[in-house]
């Protein structure tokens, strides 16, 4: 097998595979956490693993990073079988675990310094690199503060800086903005996008936030009960579900007869009702369908508000798995 550096040289800016997961299965006793999962992550992309709690996202990422062993199947990371050459993969992997794994009783600088020694970032380059990474996440001014005094968002940013310190080719982020305020979330998204665009890294992330997956990911794999439900780009996933969602707020709830009539209109893929709000998924740009919908609804009730928008991933997820993301 090739070493990591030659793999990187061969595959930079190409369509080659950074992570290859084949028939991955993980069982804990009688419980199957991952069930024959097969997927690939391309070099230089941001790849999102989505799924409800307990769907197998973290178990998958733990196996990919060598923290856990599969029951069956194979995981090839940057050209290496993770089970056979774990340390070589670790040298090229930057990890931001869900709980950050920072030494909270120590300063930000000491955390970075320990990481530098563990990952052989040495010489005169070392302090410069730590400074650079702390500046990147805007924490240099707080370098001597104990991490325990940091907010959740600051800890996530520091964990990200630490993961990037040894210039890894592959970055894994487990729920990178879990419990982080909106402002910090946006900042973390910017850093992740920068990692991909400016530095050409491959990023594997798990998330519960569809908005996050939509904003960051080139491709998304939705997994549920340890199985791959769908894998595609966010845009293609939306297109598969429908082109447009029409939201109509009415004065009274729609009757079941109206719902049947709406579903029978050509080009309508789904009709759902949430109290007094009707959500109608439409394929194509047939204006006559829009007219028919409005006519049918106004025959039964007054329309208070009407809006058209793109479908969101929550709706896609629901239609694919029959369950919401926050189970």
């Amino acid at each position, binding site marked *: 097998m090739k070493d990591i550096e030659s793999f990187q040289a061969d595959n930079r800016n190409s369509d080659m595979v950074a992570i290859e997961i084949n028939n991955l299965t993980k069982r804990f006793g009688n419980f199957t956490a991952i069930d024959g999962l097969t997927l690939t992550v391309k070099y230089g992309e941001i790849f999102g693993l989505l799924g409800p709690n307990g769907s197998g996202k973290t178990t998958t990422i733990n196996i990919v990073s060598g923290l*856990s062993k599969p029951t069956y199947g194979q995981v090839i990371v940057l050209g290496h079988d993770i089970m056979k050459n774990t340390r070589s993969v*670790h040298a090229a992997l930057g990890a931001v675990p869900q709980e950050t794994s920072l*030494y909270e*009783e*120590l300063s930000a600088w000491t955390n970075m310094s320990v990481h530098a*020694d563990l990952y*052989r970032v*040495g010489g005169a380059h070392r302090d410069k690199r730590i400074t650079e990474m702390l500046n990147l996440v805007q924490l240099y001014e707080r370098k001597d503060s104990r991490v325990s005094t940091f907010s959740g968002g600051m800890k996530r940013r520091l964990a990200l800086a630490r993961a990037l310190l040894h210039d890894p080719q592959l970055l894994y982020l487990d729920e990178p903005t879990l419990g982080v305020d909106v402002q910090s979330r946006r900042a973390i998204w910017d850093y992740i996008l920068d990692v991909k665009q400016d530095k050409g890294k491959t990023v594997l992330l798990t998330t519960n936030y569809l908005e996050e997956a939509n904003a960051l990911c080139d491709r998304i794999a939705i997994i549920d009960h340890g199985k791959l439900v769908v894998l595609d780009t966010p845009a293609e996933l939306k297109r598969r579900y429908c082109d447009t969602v029409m939201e109509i707020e009415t004065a009274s709830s729609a009757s079941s007869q109206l719902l049947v009539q709406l579903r029978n209109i050509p080009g309508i893929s789904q009709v759902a009702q949430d109290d007094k709000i009707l959500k109608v998924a439409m394929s194509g740009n047939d204006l006559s369908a829009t007219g028919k919908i409005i006519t049918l609804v106004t025959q039964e009730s007054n329309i208070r508000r009407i809006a058209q928008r793109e479908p969101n991933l929550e709706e896609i997820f629901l239609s694919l798995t029959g369950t919401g993301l926050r189970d």
Partner: protein
Amino acid sequence: MKTSFASHIRVIWAMAVKDIQSSLTERAFMLTSIIIPINFLLLFLLFALTGGQAPTAVVLEDKGPYAQQLLSAMEHSHSFIIQQTTASNAQNLMQKGQIVAIVTVPASFDAALEHGKEIELPVVVNNLDVDFTNDIRRAVPLAITSFYANAFPNQVVVRAHEVDTYFQDTGYIQYIVVSLMVVSIMLGGLLQAGSNAAREYEKGTIKELILAPANPLAIQVGKILGALVLSSSSVVVMIIVIVFLIGVWPLHWEELVGFVLLLMVTFVAAGTLIGTLIRRRQAVIPLSIGLSIPIFFISGAFGPAIWGDPVTAAIAQLQPIYYGIAIFQHAFHNFTTTSTGPGVDEFILIGFAAAMVAISAIALGSSRGRGVTH
């Protein structure tokens, strides 16, 4: 994956410094790791000081010279804590449970001896504890024999001619305090290193170590080095207490320094292994204490373990503390308490230390497959 020696050294140093810094921020845990071993030493020392001799009241109804000589013989027998008192007070002390026995020297004691008459010494024994009861049963006749040999040397013609193996006699306290030092080093090492290793799992920082490309052996050696530095403070205090307060002076200082280091490495490595396997500081503390006490009792703390029954002696020889006590008794008193001798004991301990370091590295490496969160 090829890694330079210098990068291993950097990992070792980083881990040691990081663990020392982390421990210094958790003063309660650090104090616990220092105080418990010292406390252990002092408590057992008090037990040894008070537990060996039977508190006994002597009622002298005859004040003659022979009666005084008998009292003196009892006082020098190393078996009694003598309290001379009246008959009524002695009864009172016995009823309160404050004494084990009352020995009454009758009013006619001196006169009867001078006339060669048989004398009965009334001995009242509180026989609720057979250990103390048997002490009295053995020690009173011995004291009488000793008295007789001194009072009537011409009549006692059989005497033991003692030839000593060692040039000095060593008291019970002087012997046991060395064993106590060994068990305290064991306890301190297990507590400090076990806490340091378990903290990584408790706080979730173990992922940082497991995901690093660093060699697990270098990581564990660094953690062992950190724990060695941290536990050295309690060892220094123990040496000060033993040498300067109790007055047990080592005959071979250079051996003592080397053996202290060897034992610390052995038990700090064992603590690192325990912490890596158990992953909880709350479990490490009781387990360390729970392991130390029985191992202390069977490993020759009170006298050479090979003098005991063969099964206990065989079990003792599986424990590093058995060899630790042996080499420390040599450093302090020049004693040889094992059949193997101090030179071989030293090598066996080096083997134990190397095995503990290696197994703790394997345990850390195998954390990858077992998962790292609870």
